[in-house]
């Protein structure tokens, strides 16, 4: 018992998530510092840090990162908004579902990366192809979750709307949208995670121009392990921040649901 209490004092619960990464960092630093590893594949954390400082101060990081984020934002905006409309139509209209549902469900089985040759033939290797690819990555999760959200609105709620003579618009705005919102939000969150993965994939596979993916390619080609590792850290951080932002937004918009779920 006292042992347990002591542990709590050593690492406060809020900071426990840091224990593993910090421990890894120490092991990594030690492995290089002690000469245990002399492989050029494992540079010291200090070298990565210095490379990072250099990338930031020269402005190269900003150029690469802004290009990637810009692509990511466009691809996400296009893919998610088309996905939202498409998913809503699919969920709203049985007729539309019968018409395009089977095609959609077939297309979604195709690995995203399988589209890259076709996209590069249509759009070249520039931003158009990359954004098209990112938009596709954003599209599918939004469609699926919007569809699911609309279909799972309880019939009981729709009857309430009928009893109070809601118009179609009132039904959508007052009942269906809020009832489906949690599921739609899950779709958007997934889609944002996918787009960031797809942004890197696009930059790597359609290698041209600037971007954080191109920074990685650069590092690999020149065998700058410190640059590669620095790029990986930045990519991870961006993903983390995107997810954190969205979770915060979701908490605000769907506060009622958190409060509801907290009771169960």
């Amino acid at each position, binding site marked *: 018992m006292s042992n347990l209490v002591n542990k709590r004092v050593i690492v406060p619960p809020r900071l426990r998530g840091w224990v593993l990464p910090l421990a890894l960092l120490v092991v990594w630093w030690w492995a290089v510092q002690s000469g245990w590893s002399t492989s050029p594949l494992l540079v010291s954390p200090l070298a990565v840090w210095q490379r990072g400082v250099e990338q930031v101060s020269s402005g190269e990081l900003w150029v690469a990162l802004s290009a990637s984020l810009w692509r990511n934002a466009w691809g996400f905006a296009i893919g998610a908004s088309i996905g939202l409309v498409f998913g809503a139509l699919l969920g709203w209209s049985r007729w539309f579902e019968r018409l395009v549902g089977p095609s959609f469900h077939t297309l979604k089985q195709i690995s995203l990366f399988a589209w890259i040759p076709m996209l590069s033939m249509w759009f070249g290797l520039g931003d158009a192809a990359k954004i098209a690819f990112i938009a596709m990555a954003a599209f599918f999760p939004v469609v699926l979750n919007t569809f699911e959200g609309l279909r799972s609105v309880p019939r*009981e*709620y729709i*009857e*309430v709307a*009928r*009893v*109070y*003579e*809601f*118009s179609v618009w*009132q039904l959508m705005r*007052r*009942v269906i949208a*809020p*009832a489906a*919102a949690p599921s739609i939000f899950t779709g958007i969150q997934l889609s944002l995670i996918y787009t960031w993965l797809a942004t890197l994939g696009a930059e790597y596979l359609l290698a041209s121009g600037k971007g954080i993916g191109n920074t990685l390619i650069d590092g690999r080609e020149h065998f700058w392990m410190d640059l590669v590792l620095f790029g990986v850290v930045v990519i991870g951080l961006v993903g983390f921040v995107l997810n954190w932002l969205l979770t915060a937004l979701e908490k605000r918009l769907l506060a*009622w*649901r958190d*409060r*509801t779920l907290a*009771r169960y």
Partner: protein
Amino acid sequence: MAHAGTLSIKGLSKQYEVKGEALPVLQDIDLTIEPGEFVSIVGSSGCGKSTLLRLIIGLEGDYQGDILLDGQRIVGTSLNRGIVFQEHRLFPWLTVEKNVALGLLNSSLTEGQRRATVRDHIALVGLEGFETAYPHQLSGGMSQRVAIARALVNRPDILLLDEPFGALDAMTRAHLQQELHRIWAQEHITMILVTHDVEEAVVLGDRVVVMEPRPGRIRRIVPVELAHPRERASYAFTAVKDRVLQEFSDRSAAELAESPLKPDAQPAPAAQWQFAV
């Protein structure tokens, strides 16, 4: 004060299609309900009593016969007719106030009148102070009060209640029955209560309509000529309750007597009928 309407149901029949075969749910229902009357409908499950309410509210259509409100045939839903379901069906993303106000979304009131009406109806069901609470913060009984407020906020001619207290515990149920009676007396609204609880039906109703199943028919209408407040333990009350219960226990014998040629008549043992008395 709402102007209560006369509801008359004439030769009403309703059937569902099940695997291409017609399944009769309601058969030849004749019932006239006077303005301001409180009618309870009791019957075992499957007797079509909920379907009858859904037809009156307009959530179901496609029936034979007539359902007239003040001589007008009922088509679809209307703000003149309110309903409280067994589940409260409040929207979890809205506060009590906004849930009640949703009933007024399509009313012709001004913004100020709306606010006043919502406030009045929250007070009517005794929930002052809970205006900004969310449904999950309320007990089952309180949620059902909000549902009653939402149903009444349009000042409907008729309020339909579909086993509204069925999911509540006995104490809360008895209390809400009292409250419902108070609201009915205060608002002079026509109310139709569907329940499987015979005592509830007799406590609240001016008349108790006993229905029997397969297909749903009215078996008997028992008048309850007792003054309010009704004492559940009194002799007169028990006598009426017994009369209603009698209709259930006599079922098999009566059915044989009334329709001796009916091939699928299956006398049910009395013990099978259970009521939350």
